[in-house]
């Protein structure tokens, strides 16, 4: 989910860049040099996974996975997503330089919020609660992203109101799909290799 170049106003761009810079610098502080390969290979995996298009009715959407990215990486999801977005901008011009900050925040902030909201729950032994938390994590991360995109449009120009509403509503099916995928993905990781789910710092927030 990203906004193209040229749409947002200067104040919104600057605010986005400032917030992103803050998030990234916390993330970088927490990322020791020896963690770089691990964060990078996981970022590559998320990059590749986001190329997956899943069908939804006659159309298809690509996976976003910022919820699970947040779960695994915590604050490090800021640098991870920044790098992925920069690569997307250079390789196929999705997003761009001036909106990099805004786009990083719209993707990473929900991931981080989900990390704090659900990190502990998801890692709990078995149970419906942990699966519900996984679903909520996928669902809400996209929902929050949608809200942030809508807000950045609204702060740019009042007349974007109907567009902004539509964006949030149109993402409803995406939220459901991301919820389901995150649920099954978390279930997979819990059974196959719980260490991965424990996150980059070991065991949740």
């Amino acid at each position, binding site marked *: 989910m990203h906004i193209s170049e040229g749409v947002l106003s200067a104040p919104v761009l600057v605010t986005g860049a400032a917030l992103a810079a803050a998030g990234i610098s916390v993330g970088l502080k927490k990322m020791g040099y020896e963690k770089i390969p691990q964060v990078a290979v996981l970022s590559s995996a998320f990059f590749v996974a986001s190329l997956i298009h899943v069908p939804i009715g006659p159309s298809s959407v690509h996976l976003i996975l910022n919820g699970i990215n947040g779960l695994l990486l915590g604050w490090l999801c800021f640098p991870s997503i920044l790098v992925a977005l920069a690569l997307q901008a250079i390789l196929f011009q999705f997003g761009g330089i001036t909106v990099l900050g805004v786009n990083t925040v719209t993707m990473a902030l929900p991931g981080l919020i989900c990390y704090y909201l659900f990190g502990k729950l998801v890692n709990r032994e078995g149970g419906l609660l942990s699966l519900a938390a996984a679903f909520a994590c996928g669902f809400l991360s996209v929902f929050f992203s949608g809200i942030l995109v809508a807000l950045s449009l609204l702060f740019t120009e009042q007349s974007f109101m109907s567009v902004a509403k539509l964006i949030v509503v149109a993402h409803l099916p995406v939220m459901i799909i991301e919820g389901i995928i995150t649920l099954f993905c978390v*279930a*997979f990781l819990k*059974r*196959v*290799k719980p260490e991965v789910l424990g996150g980059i710092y070991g065991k949740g927030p």
Partner: protein
Amino acid sequence: MESNSLIINLKDTSFSYSGDKLILDLLNFQLHSGERIGLVGPNGSGKTTLFHIIMGLLSPSSGKIELFGKPAHEEKVFREARKKIGLLFQDADDQLFSPTVLEDVAFGPLNLGKSPDEARDIALKTLARLDLFDFENRITYKLSGGEKRLVSLATVLAMDPEVLLLDEPTNGLDDETEEKITNILKGLKLSCIFISHNLDFLFKTTDRIYAMANGKIFLDEALVPHSHVHTHKFGRLPHEHKS
């Protein structure tokens, strides 16, 4: 299925990965119903590539492919054919992606439109057929190399295919498991192509052996025993002679 009907027919098929070297070079090959073919060839001769072409995972740069009598140049035809042709990948790590063995084996039947209960049933029966008892809840990622091979074979057999393409099925198996697989495969009444470096295995399971080299396939009529001096891998350890 009438006997002797043409199942796979490659006519003048050529293929290269990146435009330079031809891996398949005007290759002609046919598999008839009921045939059991062994395929040998040096590393890098394109055996695996051939299987991927047959399954429609790679597209030939020229030539014609017919599967079950239908010309196959679009995904739709391949999709139908894949329900009847089972492929075992060379690397067992590529075949298994579900968390548990049961889910992985049931994946194919589910895709064929079976209900979850039926699929579960088929999966359990197929596992039992391969003596893989109590495997259903094992984590695929944690299986040993040999176990991964056997489970991969189960995932293929669970789809009840008419044709089996197995890419080095005995690779990395211990002798016991190898014998087990050999016996299972001998017992199957299917058309098949087995790629293997293990001639012993091919002699037991197939009727005819082809060799692949320079992008083409030859019938290897000269596959007769002969003798020469060689040294042996595990000289002092108990060993059997293969190949």
